[in-house]
Every structure is written in C-alpha cells, then in structure tokens.
C-alpha cells in the first residue's frame, strides 16, 4: 500500500463572512487528519459542526483560509487532484432532463472516458446500483433513493481511488440504506478509499474503519472505531443454544474469581433495521412466489 495518504488535511482553517457586517465566522478551526488508502473514514458531528466545509475543502470547492488539503498528495485546489475522486453530494440533484444512462455517460465523458469502455461502464454501474431497469427514464421522475443511487453511479464512473460521500443515506429507506452500506463495504474490499460524512451514527458504525468527531469546527476526537467505542473494562460474550446449566456454571465461575461481575444478562437483541428488512423482504418474496 502506498505511503501517500488518500486524503490529508493539515491545519485546515476556514473562515466565512458572518451575517453581521465585518464579523467573521470560523467554520473549521485548525483541523488535521489523514485517511489511508483503502480505508473507510467517517467524519461525524452535529449540524453546523463544519463537516461539509471540511469535505468541500478536501474537494477544492472552497479554498482554505489557511492550512492545506490534498488528495493522494495533490493539492485539492488543482484540477489534477480530481482525477482520483468521485463525489456524491448531500441531497444530490442532477440534470433532470437527462436519463439515468445519459447522466452517467455525461460524467464519464467529463472524466475522459469514451467509446465502448464508457458504454460498458455505464451498464456495469447501473446494474451495481440497481437502476438498470430505469436506465432510459429521465431523472425528473426519480425518487430520492434513486437519485442517491444514480449519484453513486456517477461518482464511481471513472473508477476513482477515493469516494467522498456526503450523507449518503440521508432520506433513504432502510432497504436502500442497507444496499448503500453493502456497496460501501464492497468498495472497501476492492481497495477503494471512502470518506463519508454523516450524522446517522449507527450506519457510520457499521461501515467505518476510522472516525473523526468534529464539533464547532474542532476535531475533538479521532481514531479506529473499535478503539473509540470499546468500553475497556467490559467484555461481551454472546452464546447460542447455551443450556441453563452452562449459564449457571459461568455465573458461578465469575462469582468465584471475585474480580469481575455480571453486569447484565438476557437475550441478544437484533436491530430494528434487521427486523424491518426481514419482514419486508420476506413479504416481497412471498408476493413474488404467489405470482
């Protein structure tokens, strides 16, 4: 793996002109972080914390007041750096007059792709994001989830090494969210770096390797996800088909050592999302079978 970080922000500061005359607002205060190639990095924080500004600085959409950002070693403000980047903005809108295939083709052409290679790539991406049946429909009639998916397709058209996703699952139903999450994991397996912003923490938890927490423009915490959320002095043990006698033995063993205690016990819980998916997908399967 290359030593050059996929994304690097060094002492990034960004000021904006405030609502009141002459008063500046410092949206990002001296933020520094690195994203290694192949990593999935989540930048989380409340609304107005500076996530989007940081992301835009990385993409070169805003110029830093001071400090710098780079993508695979190239200054973000240079057009060159965007060869390696695909970006999905929050609540994306694309040209409504274009069809799904035309949209991906347009962005592919802008990246220098052409001919059969582009044609094949369009087909591949539309299938990947599940829009092959809507390829000739104009975006005007697309739902939010479909727009999100076409956004992913255009972001990936030139097979970038870095994907920047701003709230990729915002407003998307659980099925769609799951698909996007699975897609991110698949991209990770392919070695693509993903930099995402979100305030849907559970979803960040499911996909990210490393996380940065930004609050009022300051990166307050950063590190590997497992390290950050692990409760150090507690251990979780999940058993399947454990008999009552085995459970008694474990309780007794804990009591005997006098070093640990059982904090809680009970049935392991699934998530509401898993329940939703199980119910909706089984319902869909039954309907398909009856047809």
């Amino acid at each position: 793996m290359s030593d050059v970080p996929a994304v690097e922000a060094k002492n990034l500061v960004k000021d904006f002109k405030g609502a009141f005359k002459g008063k500046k607002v410092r949206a990002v205060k001296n933020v520094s972080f690195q994203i290694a190639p192949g990593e999935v990095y989540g930048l989380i924080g409340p609304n107005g914390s500076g996530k989007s500004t940081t992301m835009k600085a990385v993409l070169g959409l805003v110029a830093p007041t001071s400090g710098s950002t780079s993508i695979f070693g190239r200054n973000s403000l240079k057009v060159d750096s965007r060869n390696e980047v695909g970006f999905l903005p929050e609540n994306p809108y694309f040209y409504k007059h274009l069809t799904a295939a035309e949209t991906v083709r347009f962005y592919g052409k802008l990246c220098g792709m052409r001919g059969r290679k582009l044609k094949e790539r369009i087909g591949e991406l539309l299938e990947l994001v599940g829009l092959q049946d809507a390829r000739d429909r104009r975006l005007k009639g697309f739902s939010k989830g479909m727009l999100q998916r076409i956004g992913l397709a255009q972001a990936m058209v030139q097979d970038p090494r870095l994907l920047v996703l701003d709230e990729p699952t915002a407003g998307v139903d659980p099925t769609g969210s799951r698909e996007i999450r699975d897609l991110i994991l698949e991209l990770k397996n392919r070695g693509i770096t993903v930099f995402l912003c979100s305030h849907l923490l559970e979803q960040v938890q499911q996909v990210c390797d490393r996380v940065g927490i930004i609050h009022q423009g300051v990166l307050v915490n950063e590190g590997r996800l497992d390290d950050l959320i692990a409760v150090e002095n507690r251990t979780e043990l999940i058993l399947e088909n454990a008999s009552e006698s085995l459970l008694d033995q474990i309780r007794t063993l804990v009591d005997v050592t006098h070093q640990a205690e059982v904090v809680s016990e009970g049935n392991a819980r699934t998530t509401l999302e898993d329940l939703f998916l199980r119910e909706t997908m089984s319902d869909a399967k039954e309907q398909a079978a009856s047809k």
Partner: protein
Amino acid sequence: MRRFKTIRNLIVIAAVLAGTGYLRMPREQKFTQDLRERKIAHPQIDSEIWSEMGQTSLAGAFGGLRSVMASFMSVGAYDHFENNDWYELEKDYDVITALDPYNSFYWDSGGWHLGWNAASWAKRNQDFSPAKRQLFEMEYLEKGDAFYWKGLKYNPKSEKLYYEMGAMWSNEFKRPDLERAAEAFKMVRYSRNPVYRRRYLFTVSRITGREIEAYDEMMRLMQDGPIHFSVPKFRVLSVILGSNPELPDGVLRPQIHQVFQTKELAYRDLYNYRARIKYDGYYAGNIDQLMKQLIDELKVPDSLNPFVTEPMRPLYPSVWREELEKRDADAIID
C-alpha cells in the same frame, strides 16, 4: 475577505474593460465611419429629432430596431393624413426619416403628403380666406419640395424622388413652376424607365423660349426606338416641335404621315393636344394649320371641329367614332 474579493474583482473588471476599450475605440470608430461613408450605417440622429421621438420610437432606436420602428411609424402616420393633421404628420415623418434615412420610400411618402395632400387640403379649405388658402398651399408645396431635396441628400440616386418633385411642380391643378419641374425631370431623363425619360421633354415643351431645347430632347428620345411613339403626346410633339421655324436648316422635321399610322389618329391626337395648350402651356407650333388641313381632307364634322365647336376634353376614340357615324348617316339622309 469576501468583501475585499468583490471590490478587487470589480476593479479588475473595470480596468480590463477600460484598457481593452481604449484599444478598440479607434478601430470601432474607423469601422463605423467606413460603414457610414458607404451608407451601410445610418447617420447619427439629430438632437432635435431625439426630442421629438416618442417612447416607442426611442426604445426602437436604442434596441436596434430603427428600420422596424420606421416601418411601423409610417403606418401610423397614415392616420394623421386621414385626419388632415399635417403638423403631427410632419413631425412623424421627421422622426421616420431620421430613423431610416436611406430608404427613399419614406421621403417619397412624406413629400407626397406635404406637397400633394396637405397643399390640396389647404387649397380647398373653406375655413381660410382665399389669400390664406393660397399662402398655405404654397407653404406646403415648399415643404414638400424641401422634403424631397432632403431625401435626395441621403438618396442621391433615387429617381423616384426627382420624378415626384417634378410631378408636383408640373401639376396643372396646383401652382405649377415649370422651371423647377424641368430641373427635377432633367435628373431622370436618362432613366431606364421610359415614363421618366419622357417627362423632361413634356415639361420643357411647355416653357416658352425653350422650344429648341425641347426639340433636341425629342430627337434624343427618338433614338430609343419606337417605344415613345406609343404615347400620343410624344407623337404630336415630334411633329409640332419639328415645325418650329426657328430650327436651323437641314434638321429632321417629322411629318404626319411619318409619325401617325392614319390621318384619323393624327387628327384625334392633335385635337386633344390643342385642347390642352390653353391650360398646360404646350408649344403650339403649326398645329392650327395642320388641323385645318386634316379637317378638309377627312371632312371632319363641326362637332369635332375645334374652330367651330368648343373642344371636348379629351376626345375619346368612342366619341370620335360615334360622331363620324352620325356624320355618315346625315350624309346618306341628305
């Protein structure tokens, strides 16, 4: 920082525009002058005219629709004519011709309204005293004349303007000034249009003392071939002018039998020409002698003898035939 950037941007934009403007200014001026000299670009509109322009024509002038505005205004000006509102009409035509000065049509229309319609209205207007009627009529004729001349300044090749000016000054129902009419028609005597070519001859032959000149013009037109001989007046003039005793010896003097197909046709044309001499001042020459000769030869009835009966104006071929038939019928009865 953002405010600084905005100010900086505006300064740079202004500076670049000013700098490039300074460089392109003389080239633009040169190009404009060249287009003006070749009459592709319109001349500048006079400051007086600006003040006369209404909002619509101003908008048209500024929006690059000068010719279009002129077209629409000329349609609107027709209303002033119908309402005899000559002051407004004149103002409108000042603006119309300022908007599209290289279009002779508007000068022609404006001159027509002033020199013909307004002058006629003034002449007939019973609200004025006779002296005032005459005065206003002359005033409008002069306005029409000035309008035509102004039009010719912008359209020096316009035969129509010369022709209309000449027609105005030669019209027997107005206040004819044949000298001025002749000067105008002289400018179109080499026109391709046979009608225009003839008018100088017809006018000059009405001016006492210029009969020789008329004869020379007639001889020039005869070189065009037979086209002019289709016009009765030309046929008559070719004979009458040729009868002028002051012509030098040896010049061509067309005779009746050379010019007219039949003696009847000759008599009819001479009859009509003679009837106009009193009103239009045409050169008489030896017309009386020629007519008396034809009266004897053709045994013309008294009703068609201008020396016996007051001449009709004009003598139509149908009337001529009727009178001859009556004569023949009377002869049989006798």
